[in-house]
């Protein structure tokens, strides 16, 4: 399989190559029976990897501009529709009279029901003199 099995310099601090055993194990190398074995092996792998390699090339070649342009159709049409709707609402809203100005104090008490002091507003106390004080 590999020629460097006989290169002793690679085994400086190793157990070293066992030439006899390596030669015997070499019988298990398929290239001993078919010299083109590894070439065929590699060809098989590469031909079956073609689709995945092509997919990876395509993914890598896609740029940011490509992605933006692929989105452009949907994004632009949605933005135009939203702008038209907003414009229509603004035009329709311009025909109504503006609301009258409201004072801050009025806003603070609006929608708040004022509680009367029962003693002062009771019918039998009409005409009577009364003093009232509130402490906040």
């Amino acid at each position, binding site marked *: *399989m*590999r*020629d*460097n*099995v*006989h*290169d002793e310099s*690679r*085994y400086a601090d*190793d*157990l070293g*190559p*066992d030439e*006899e*055993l*390596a*030669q*015997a*194990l*070499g*019988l*298990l*190398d*398929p290239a001993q029976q078919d010299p083109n074995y*590894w070439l065929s*092996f*590699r060809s*098989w*792998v*590469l031909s*079956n*990897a*073609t689709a*995945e*390699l*092509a*997919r*990876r*090339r*395509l*993914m*890598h070649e896609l740029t940011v501009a490509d992605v933006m342009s692929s989105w452009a159709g949907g994004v632009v049409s949605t933005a135009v529709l939203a702008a038209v709707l907003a414009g229509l609402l603004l035009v329709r809203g311009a025909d109504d009279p503006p609301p009258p100005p409201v004072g801050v104090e009025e806003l603070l008490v609006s929608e708040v029901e004022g509680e009367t002091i029962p003693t002062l507003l009771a019918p039998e106390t009409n005409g009577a003199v009364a003093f009232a004080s509130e402490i906040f």
Partner: protein
Amino acid sequence: MSLEGSEIPADGDLVHRAKRGDKFAFGQLVERYQGATYAVALSVTGRHEGAEDAAQESFLVALQRLDECRSPERFAGWLMTIVRNRSRNLVRRESLRHTDQVPPAARSLVPMPDRVAETSELRERLKRALAALPEIQRQIVLLHDLEGWTHREIAGRLGLPSGTVRSHLHFARKALRVSLGGTPAGPDLQRKAL
């Protein structure tokens, strides 16, 4: 093999290029590790056909999962893990399937020239001797003595302590020599192989 040389691209570089779909870079990775993947697959499956299938499929799986390889410079170790897992799955599937293949004993009855027969017999003896070893020792002895990796390369790529690799290699060689007929088996093996 010196991967640090300026002429030879490092694994990390090839992996980055392969991730971008560079066929040439992926081809270089396949060429660099085809023998090792086959050796590891053979150490698990114990037979050529299974080892070939597992090794080839492992490259395809590795390419599909290349983005999961967190340390591209340690591609070899990552790839060997895939090979081991694929090979074990293959063995598991094969053990569940009953095949009507011709058993090795029957195949050996087919007449063949003497030298081819001797080589074939020796190959079968080797396979049996390897089969008697623990899986890790088979991997180490095949990567070292068949594929030519140093014990440091094996340690780094398989994620094992260097001393453990040396120890496994020592015991694997010793066991193989015993299984193949003792020390004199070496010259005997050579004579038969040649």
